[in-house]
Structure formats: C-alpha cells, structure tokens
C-alpha cells in the first residue's frame, strides 16, 4: 500500500500527424507519483509533453496507454465516473480564456457547485463567498465579470472555481506564466497556502524553474515525452545529475548582473518528435554525448550516491561534473 494519491505508470500518448500519419509519441512511457498533500513540479521546454500529461490526468486526452491509479482505484479516461472527475480539478494558464466572459463570478462558481452537487441549493450563495475568501478576494467581486478584473484577480477566480468541487488533486498548467511578477508571487503563495490548509495535492506544470523551486516538494524534468530526472526539489536544483537539467538551470537568467553563459550546444532547439535521435533522445544537444548514448536509451534509474528518490536517465549520471560549469561572462 503506497501513500501516493496519483500514480502513473508507463503512460504513453500517441498522436498521428494529420498529413503523414506517422505516429508521434507526445508522452513516451512516463511514470510519476504525486503523494497526498505533495506539490510536484513538472518542468520542460515547450513540446516536451508536460501539458499532454496534465490532460491525461484530468481526462482530457483519449488515446492513452499505460496504467493510472488515483487513490488506489484505476483512473479511467473514458467514462470516468463523476465522483472521480470531481476529485481532480484543473487550473489553466490563461485566465482570460479559461473563464466565461459573459458569466459573473457568482455564476461561474455556482455552476460548478450545482453540477457536482457539492452543497444543498440554499447554501450555494454563501459557499461562493467562502470560495472567494479562500483565494483572498473580496465578496464584492461576486457580481463582476472577467473583463472587470485584473489578470491576478481572474486567476484567483479560476482557482476558486477549481476548488469549488472540493478536489483532492489540483492540476495547474502554467498557472502563473501569463501574470506580471508582482502578481505572480501572490498566486504562488496561494498555492502553498491551499496545500497547507486543505491538504491539497498539486501537479504544478511550469517552464519557469525559479517558481518551481519556491513552491514544489519534488520536481520531474520532462524532455521529448520522457522524464529525464526526478527527485526532491533541493536535490534536483543543487545536485542536478542529468545534462539536460543542468542546461536548463544554466539558461535561467538571474538578477546578478551578467553571470550568464550560453549553455553549450543545447542552445539549439529540440529535435522534432517524429525524428528523435537513436539512443538517448537528448544526445544531439548534449556536450557529454558518447558512443554509448547513440546505442542505447538510458533508463530513469535511482542514483546510489544522491538524495532518496533522486533518479536520472543518463548513462553518465554518476561521473558527470556536479558543479555548475565555469561561467563565461556575456558582457563587459
């Protein structure tokens, strides 16, 4: 008996290209667990399959192979029982398009409460107010429509709507990417607080690693449909053992003026999913790539000399230079 709330094993999602009918594996054998009350970050470049994986979890993706369990019971994709749907909710990236522009805040929240029969009819009004309080918005916003609110307020309404059916797992797909930094910090704090107060589990998808570092307990790094590294946030950020993770970390600009370098050959774009290299899929952007990487694809394996649960999919994880490679200044 594991205490994982969500357990994905060997998930595969295959799309067929419309023109050539070549099958493309957007998600190619991903296994991932989200524990109760745990925030797991899923990071990677665009096209890595992280949003597709999110859609698998909430049931928006139909062509799925592999096994998914939620609270010990199989997580079906088609004909998912309403009760199971209620327990997994999603927050989208863009609150401008995820809210109905013609509905007031009260209507958006009340609709969810009614559909999932969360509270008796006479309590719907007061529950709407409670939900707004939970996301730190004043009750006066109940009659407002999305266009009357700022981006941060809209995202809070979208979060309140996701909380309305009292879910156990929240899937948040880039929920702060469209927001200004001054507002972003507040939303990140809200997610942390919801976990603390409600015991929510959160699958947090982001391309901004700095945000992930501040919020998540564990991180999984995805590349071209596969997990390349996974572990406790502090282990992955301070002791990255996959060249791809190291590349991502180095590419992030910091507030220290000019401590910045071009991350090796990985500055080039990722390959196309339909034309993956043989062996390790990162090898053509990897500065450590060798013959072995061409011949066999490394499995995501537990590292013996790192933190518990720290896994990496690189043949050379054990011998890779650990420290951040020397930094070449980009300006005078």
């Amino acid at each position, binding site marked *: 008996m594991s205490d994982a709330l969500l357990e994905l094993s060997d998930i595969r999602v295959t799309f067929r290209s419309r023109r050539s009918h070549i099958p493309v594996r957007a998600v190619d054998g991903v296994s991932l667990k989200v524990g109760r009350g745990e925030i797991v970050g899923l990071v990677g470049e665009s096209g890595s399959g992280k949003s597709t994986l999110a859609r698998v979890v909430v049931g928006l993706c139909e062509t799925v192979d592999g096994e998914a369990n939620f609270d010990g019971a199989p997580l079906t994709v088609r004909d998912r029982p309403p009760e199971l749907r209620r327990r997994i909710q999603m927050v989208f990236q863009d609150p401008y398009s995820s809210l109905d522009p013609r509905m007031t805040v009260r209507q958006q929240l009340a609709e969810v409460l009614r559909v999932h029969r969360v509270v008796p009819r006479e309590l719907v009004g007061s529950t709407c107010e409670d939900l707004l309080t939970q996301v730190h918005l004043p009750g006066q916003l109940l009659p407002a429509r999305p266009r009357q609110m700022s981006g941060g307020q809209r995202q809070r309404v979208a979060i309140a709507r996701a909380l309305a059916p009292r879910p156990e797992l929240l899937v948040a797909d880039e929920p702060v990417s469209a927001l200004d930094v001054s507002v972003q*910090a507040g939303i*990140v704090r809200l997610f942390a607080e919801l976990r603390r107060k409600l015991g929510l589990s959160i699958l947090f998808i982001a391309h901004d690693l*700095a*945000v992930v570092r*501040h919020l998540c307990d564990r991180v999984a790094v995805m590349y071209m449909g596969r997990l390349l590294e996974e572990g406790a946030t502090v282990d992955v950020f301070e002791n990255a053992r996959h060249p791809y993770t190291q590349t991502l970390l180095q590419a992030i*600009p910091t507030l220290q003026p000019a401590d910045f370098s*071009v991350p090796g050959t990985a*500055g080039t*774009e990722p390959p196309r999913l339909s034309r993956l290299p043989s062996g390790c899929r990162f090898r053509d952007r990897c500065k450590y790539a060798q013959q072995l990487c061409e011949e066999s694809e490394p499995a995501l394996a537990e590292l013996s000399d790192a933190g518990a649960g720290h896994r990496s999919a690189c043949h050379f994880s054990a011998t890779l230079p650990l420290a951040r490679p020397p930094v070449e200044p980009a300006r005078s």
Partner: protein
Amino acid sequence: MRAGHLVRPRERGPALVPPAPSGRPGLLEVEGLTVSVSPPGERRRVDVVSNVSFNIMAGEAVGLVGESGSGKSLTLRAILGLLPAGATVKGGAVRFEGVDLLSGGKRSLQRVRGTGVTMIFQEPMTALNPVVRVGEQIVDAARRQLGWSRRESSEHALELARHMGIRDPDAVLSLYPHELSGGLRQRVMIAAALACQPRLVLCDEPTTALDVTIQAQIVALLARLRQESQMSLLYVTHDLAVVAQLCQRLQVMYAGSIVEKGSVAEIFASPRHPYTLGLIRATPDVHTVVDELTGIPGSAPHVGARPAGCAFHPRCSLATIECSSGEMPLRDLGNGRASACIHVDACQSAAEGLEAVR
C-alpha cells in the same frame, strides 16, 4: 558562437541617413514623449505615456521595465511611428542621430528603418508576411537597403539563421511562417531585424514567449552584437533578470511614467523607488530560496484611472499623506541615477538586506 558577418565593418552604399551633427549627446534622444489614448467606451483622452525622456548612446543597451499596462511598449512603438490605431503622440520629441522622427513624417521614418533602427516584436506571427517564404523575408529589407544580390542574400540568410541556432537552416528558410513553431518564427523575425546591421534595435519582449534555452541564446547573441559592432539596444521587458544579463542602464516605468533610472548594477544593489524594490523582491531566483516570495499588493491602475500624486502610492508600504497629491517628477540623485519617490531615504533603508536575502 561567432557573430560572423554581423560584426564586419559596415558595407553599404551611399549613406541613407545624414551623419549626426557633432556635439549631440546620444544616438537616440527621447524628450518629454507623451502618448494619449481614449479609454474603452469613453471620448476623453488620457495620457498613457507621460513626459518620458531618456537617451541611448552608441553601443549601449538600455532596459525599459514595467508591468503590463505601464506604457513601455507604447513608448517603444512611438519611436518608430508604429503606434496602434487610437493612440497618438501628444507631445515631445524623438531624435535619432539628430533627426527628428516625430515631425519629419513618413519619409524620415523610412530613412532610418532597417539600417538605422529596427524593431523586434513579441508576436512574430503578426510581424511576418504569411505568404512569403521566411528565407526571403529575412533578407528582404537588406536587399532593398544595402543592395545585396540574390546570391549574397541567400548566403546571408543562411548565416543569420545559423546564428539564431536554427537547426537545418536550408530546409527552414524555404518554409512559410505558419509551418514553423513559435520559437522558430521568433528567431526568423530577429534575424530579419538584424540583417541590415542596424545601429539601434528596439526589442519589445522578444524572448518572453520562448523557452529559457532559446532565450539564453538570443540574449547572448544580442549582447555580443552590442559589444562587437556597437549596436545599441532598447530592451522592453517585464523580466528583470534578462535586463541584468543584457543591459547597462535601466529605467523602470509605472503607469506611464519613468519612476526610476540608473545603472543596472546600482539599481539592483540598492533601488531608490519602492516599486523597483517590489519588483526585485517579487522576482524568484532559481539559485536561492526565500521563505516566502513577496508580491506587490493590489494591481496596476487601469487606463484613465491613474491615482493622483504618486501613481504607485495605493500599493506602496512607504506611502504617506504627501504621496497622494501633487506632481512627482524624476529627481536627480547624481551619478546618472534618478527617482520619482519623495521618500528616497526610507526606500534606501527598506532595500537594505536585499543582498543578504539573495
């Protein structure tokens, strides 16, 4: 990565832009620029950029930072006469190498576009022509302005594409914009903007929509071009970290006005406006973890609802009664720094320990 032909001495025909009169400070001078629009559903005009002044020297990269709605993009667009419908320049002057771009009409703008000033937009799809192959678009302006031959053009297009980190440039250049991914389109547009070796590039959040790996490469390329060929940059972004990597000077905009300016190193070490301090505190750093990220309470004012006095005072923890009325001009603090805050000392002490946090 080498910047190849991009840093060769300029080869071009007769000068299209008259040389700068001597004694003029700066490549670009913006003086008292004011842009006004009508708020949605209203007839009155309100200023969304008010009295903005700055200049940029040759070979200098200047960051213009602010949140959405701060007027930073409109400032940039006003310089090249590219304001959206409904927005008009109400006053001020924009001089490039001494030539006024605002009063000179279309002709003076056309003279500087391409070889003098170019712009990189955030949305590549609207900046590229959907029915022309991208290879031709990259060198289109250069062929006209610099008189490149067809063969020269295709060689340059290939080289530019390689500098942008485009894989398989031969194949990519024969495609149409809709066949490219967002990141590729963006790099194609940047290549087109750099093809004429402009002296000033206006960047409107060019890497905001890109992955960090691609962003890193583009920022490094711009930094190198600035160093090696004295190209100047005006870089509009909301990402302070990118500014820290690329720019020497920084100006922070809030609700249409510049509220703080100075060198990047000094502002990040010790900001003198509470808004700048708030932005720095709100920016998460990937290499260090603070207990809690601090945001700025509230949100930026809507167009036409600019608070009286200091526009930032309703969100400011240092605000006093004096902040809610009167004009708040930029005050010179010496050493090229200026702030519009009347509580500069309080802000300085509030910023103490900023280094310790990071």
